[in-house]
């Protein structure tokens, strides 16, 4: 403010008021309200729909103003009375001038016509400016719904009655039951929610839901005797939606009434959502089911992201301010943060403190920081979400967002630092500190080398492993080693019995014996037959050898040294296993490899230079770092993952799609193989265990890393 910050008992400009007879207009209504145990008075001018809040001392003064006494007389009278707090002349001037600006004063004398027009022009301009700055929530009033609401009084009466409250509760409970039962289905369908084919319906549903939501607010306002005079269109995130003006609730005396007005919209919305969910669960299909689904999702998203959330200035915020008895929480939080900055950073000792108690200080600080962060991320998230489907729209929104959330606040900050009157006394400190912070920030971002790393998912594989495959089917008769046993090459693992094979051997042996007999007979009787018999004997021997070999295979022998990894083979005795069955894997545990899947964007960085250091952290063992040997990039793109656990269907991070039978990655990927070092952590290493590999590519300033990421994102999402 331009007037001196200090209280001034006497003010230079008092003479302008002292002789005037000023009083509140007769149309101004006064409401008493208690905030945090302190009494306040809210002045309300119904003609212009403006509010002004006064503390008790100030109200005491205002209430004594009349058209028979001059301001000076009233002030002197108050001074000599026993009243505790008397506003100083400076405060009276400020107060009256604000009431004048809100058109709440009745005064004698001729008003300057030009000035009235000027003031109106200024107000209009201010409104336009505020609208432009708040372009994501642009409001255009359309008509006065009061007469309609009066006609609907009977409906409001029903809807806000106790019996209907039970209906409401019942609907919510039933819907909750359906919701829990069908949670997975509900979740799965969200993917297509914003797709172009559905967006039209989403919008139609949103308008209907919002209309009913706003009707909810109005209904509660009407219930407590307030009036609603504006309904209009709000361009929320550029989408036109209905809104209505429930400011009449500000004058409600009871806190709970105000909270109820704030909650009214959501209560209606919950009811609609409940009905929609019940419909959705019970309908077989068709357009109605889709619509019910849309309605339900809109209600839940808008409730969670906007309405119930006090970090945005929607219903939840107003409810919170009423519950906490802290009107203007947002402005005061900003004011408090500014105070902290001025007082403790710029060391302006007479900075204006907005918070009185520790709890207020805490709430303001917390709220101020949280809401700023939340807002930023909400908008950024929305832009990104929309950009996946609507490139140009997201571009426009992104630009506007940048303007309203970065450029303008930054400009304002610059003005505040370099030219704001609040910092006049500490300007040089403020400027130097800001420049210092800013330049060091830039310095850190652009010059401080930060480890340039990226991670990629992958799995552990033993560097050598062998499937123990049954060579010949048979019935298990003996198990020599069980899972996790260390076996040497040649050790028997399983002993099988195959009676059929034994018979065949016997048969073959019989045939050989028979043929031998025949051979000896031919030697005696007909030597000319000896040669064919000899050949047959050879064939038979051959067959016998084959069979014996097969019989040998009935004993499953370890092909290499390693740990046997199988299921519960000790219970296999008596069971028949088929030829070609795998009973487990023999792992060479002397060393393990890690096979990582690297995306296209990142792999070029590996091609361009070897990482300084690579290490692996396994899932579930995030605090244990396992160093690795040199990496080996397999220089061909693949669409198969080394393990299904890495893809979307296996719960991994890599986008995959099922193509008929096999699972494929959505984009080509590259495999990187490396040997894990660090023998002491052997117990963690399990074949097939998934983890993340971290490539350390040396150091690079953060800003440069960010720029590269942003460029890649642009290229990827916008195809620029």
């Amino acid at each position, binding site marked *: 403010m331009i007037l001196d910050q200090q209280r001034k008992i*006497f003010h230079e400009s008092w003479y302008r008021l002292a002789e005037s007879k000023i009083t509140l207009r007769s149309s101004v209504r006064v409401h008493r309200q208690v905030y945090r145990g302190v009494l306040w008075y809210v002045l309300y001018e119904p003609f212009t729909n403006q509010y002004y809040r006064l503390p008790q001392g100030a109200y005491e003064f205002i209430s004594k103003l009349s058209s028979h006494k001059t301001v000076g007389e009233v002030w002197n009278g108050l001074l000599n009375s026993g009243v505790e707090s008397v506003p*100083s002349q400076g405060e009276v*001037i400020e107060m009256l001038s604000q009431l004048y600006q809100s058109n709440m004063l009745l005064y004698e004398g*001729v*008003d300057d016509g030009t000035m009235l027009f000027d003031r109106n022009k200024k107000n209009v301009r201010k409104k336009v400016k505020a609208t432009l700055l708040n372009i994501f929530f642009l409001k255009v009033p359309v008509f006065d719904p009061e007469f309609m609401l009066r006609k609907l009084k009977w409906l409001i009466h029903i809807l806000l009655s106790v019996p209907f409250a039970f209906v409401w509760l019942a609907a919510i409970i039933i819907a909750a039951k359906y919701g829990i039962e069908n949670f997975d289905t509900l979740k799965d369908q969200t993917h297509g929610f914003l797709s172009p084919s559905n967006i039209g319906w989403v919008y139609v549903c949103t308008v209907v839901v919002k209309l009913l939501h706003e009707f909810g607010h109005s209904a509660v306002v009407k219930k407590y005797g307030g009036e609603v005079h504006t309904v209009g269109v709000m361009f929320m995130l550029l989408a036109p939606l209905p809104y209505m003006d429930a400011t009449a609730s500000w004058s409600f005396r009871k806190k709970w009434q105000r909270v109820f007005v704030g909650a009214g919209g959501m209560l209606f919305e919950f009811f609609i959502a409940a009905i929609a969910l019940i419909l959705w669960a019970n309908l077989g299909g068709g357009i109605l089911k889709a619509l019910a689904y849309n309605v339900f999702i809109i209600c839940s998203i808008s409730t969670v992201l906007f309405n119930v959330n006090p970090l945005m200035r929607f219903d939840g915020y107003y409810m919170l301010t009423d519950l906490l008895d802290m009107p203007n929480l947002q402005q005061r939080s900003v004011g408090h943060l500014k105070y902290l900055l001025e007082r403790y950073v710029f060391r302006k000792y007479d900075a204006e403190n907005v918070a009185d108690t520790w709890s207020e200080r805490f709430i303001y600080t917390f709220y101020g920081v949280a809401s700023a962060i939340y807002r930023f991320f909400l908008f950024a998230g929305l832009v990104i979400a929309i950009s996946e489907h609507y490139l140009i729209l997201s571009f426009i929104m992104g630009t506007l967002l940048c303007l309203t959330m970065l450029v303008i606040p930054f400009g304002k900050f610059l003005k505040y630092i370099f030219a704001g009157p609040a910092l006049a006394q500490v300007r040089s400190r403020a400027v130097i500190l800001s420049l210092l912070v800013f330049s060091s920030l830039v310095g850190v971002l652009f010059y401080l080398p930060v480890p340039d790393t990226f991670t990629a998912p992958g799995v552990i594989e033993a560097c050598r492993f062998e499937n123990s495959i049954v060579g010949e089917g048979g019935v298990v008769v003996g198990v020599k080693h069980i899972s996790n046993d260390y076996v040497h090459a040649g050790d028997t693992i399983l002993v099988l019995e195959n009676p059929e094979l034994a018979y065949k051997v016997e048969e073959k042996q019989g045939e050989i014996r028979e043929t031998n007999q025949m051979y000896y007979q031919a030697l005696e009787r007909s030597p000319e037959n000896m040669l064919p018999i000899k050949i047959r004997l050879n064939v038979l021997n051959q067959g016998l050898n084959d069979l014996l070999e097969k019989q040998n295979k009935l004993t499953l022998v370890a092909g290499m040294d390693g740990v046997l990894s199988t299921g519960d083979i000790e219970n296999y005795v008596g069971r028949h296993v088929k030829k070609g069955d795998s009973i487990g894997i023999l792992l060479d545990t002397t060393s393990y490899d890690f096979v990582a899947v690297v995306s296209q964007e990142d792999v070029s960085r590996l091609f361009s230079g070897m990482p300084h250091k690579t290490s692996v952290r396994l899932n579930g063992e995030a605090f244990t770092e396992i160093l690795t040997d040199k990496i080996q990039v397999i220089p061909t793109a693949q669409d198969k993952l080394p393990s299904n656990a890495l893809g979307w269907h296996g719960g991994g991070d890599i986008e995959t799609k099922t193509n008929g039978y096999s699972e494929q990655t959505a984009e080509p990927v590259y495999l990187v193989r490396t040997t894990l070092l660090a023998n002491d952590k052997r117990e963690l290493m399990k074949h097939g265990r998934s983890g993340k590999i971290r490539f350390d590519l040396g150091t690079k300033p953060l800003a440069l890393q960010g720029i590269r990421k942003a460029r890649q994102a642009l290229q990827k999402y916008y195809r620029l």
Partner: protein
Amino acid sequence: MNLTENYRLTSLKRVKKIPTGLDAFVYRLIGRFKERSSIRRKVLRTARKIDVMGRGFVSLEVSELKKRLAAIREKFKRPVNDEVLAEAFALVQESVLRVLGYRPYVEQIAGALALYNGYIAEMSTGEGKTVTAAMCGVIRGWSGRPCHVITANDYLASRDAQIMGGLYNFCGVSVGAVTGAMKPPERRAGYAADVTYSTAKEVLADFLRDRIAMGKSQNFSKRILDSFTLQQNAVSDKLVQRGIFTAIVDEADNVLIDEAVTPLIISREKDNKGFNRTCEIAFELSDNLVRDVDYKVDVKLRTVRFLVDMDERLEEIQDDLAEKNGNNGGFCRASFLKDLVRQALIAKELFFLGRQYLIEEGKVVIVDESTGRKMPMRSWNGGLHQMIELKEGLELTGLKETEARMSFQRFFRLYKHFSGMTGTGKEASSEFWMIYGTPVLCIPNHRKNKRKIYRLKTYSTKESKRKAIMDEVVRVHKLGRPILIGTKDIDESETFGRMLSESGLHCKIINAVRSDDEANIIAEAGKAGAITVATNMAGRGTDIKIPKSVKQVGGLHVIATECNMSSRIDRQLFGRSARQGDPGSASHYASFEDEVLRRNLPSTMMTLFRHAGPLASLAVKWAQYRAGRKSYQSRVAVQRTDTWLEESLGFSGGDV
């Protein structure tokens, strides 16, 4: 009072809001455009044409000339076209020749034209600004609407009105002067004339007093309505002015910029026992507080900060105090007491006898710190004045209650026709344009300037600087040249006076304390061998004429002993020498102990520059720049408060 006069009484120009932000940038560009050099060429061309036309009137009889003047005078009751205007200027030029005995130069006509067209005319010192203003004044006076010629001080106002009286009479224009010592009837007579010479302070004060007298009937339509009912003309007897219409400001930079930092306040002393008693209580309370334990003094910001919770302490005792003081206890409230205790501490810790105030006849007299001048009739507000009186053990004066207040910036913007003249306007041209909406027009000199300005000499201490100055005085004095030594404050001028007489030189001193024979001393200062010590402001507007013998030895030598807050004021001082084509020279000095450096440069910079050798003069430039910015900011603050008050208290009655 007829209807027209009644209307003119309060008809003012609507004050436009000063643009800010991007608007200000655009507005500044418009200002640049309005100051383009083709305008100057055009004005000079017209002036030459007028000059040629004027030569045609040389042969006219006096009676014939007067007839022509009377005829053209009638035309000025209505708006006139360019030809009539040119003829009017030509006639006035001829009248100047007849009355004053010399013919105004083309440049002076150009200056008068610029004034007529609402420019700030930049004319070097000694170019005959008084005549220029009078020529424009005559033509403005013909319209019969009030024309105010604003001069720098009372002396100049009465002197100019007197010198130019002949010219005005010749042209059929009545002239008056209003000075500080005048009583209301004399003032009324002064303002009743077509053209009134006065100072900014007087005009504004009379304007405000008239407004107070008018009270509720400041609005024309309300006055008309009232005249149908009862209260007729009761007010008009008390008024002195006829309203405001045209202003021609001489020394515009001084009046509009240097002096416009503080608004003019009309106040009335009101007895307030309760308040005085509370002041005493607060003063006693402040005695119990210990510096750096209970409070801290911030010398730079000139304020006191409490280190303990004063509210709590005072709340404990407020009821007791209020009870004890019965009827007078109205101010014994913690919040008010806290303020008063703070004022008491400020009075004790930050205000010193001899620096910020003097005591004369048992009264506190405020001294303007920047100019060193006494400001009687002024008082501090918010209880500070009472606290100082308590501190000095004087009788408490009553509370000064403001009755009216207006800044000069705002006042001059109320004139429908506003123009000015200055010797040094270019530096401040953007401010003239931004605040007053008047572009600056440079009028070339009639004769070539022969002034020689020596390089700035800087010394590290005041003492060494004074010695160097004395050496220079002795050296120049030996040549027989007259010397004018300009000092910044009274003390310094006295010091130089003493030093000069110690070294056996005779000198004359002019300052606020010895201002009796100011004009004469200044007039004599041009004589051979004269040494005059004067504060900067002394003898403004008076020509220092130099005899022929002096011209031959090099004319007047001006020594500026200290750099001022603004280089403009330095230049004004230099302008004392080498007037109207005479020879002359000026030299200036600065030391690192000077106020302008001490106040405006950070101490680290001071030590840095002190050893910077030839760069030291840069330090002075920089300090002046910073001082300029600071005072500009305070003027802007005045301006802002004005706007805010107007916007927020528009309901309190009155247009201004």
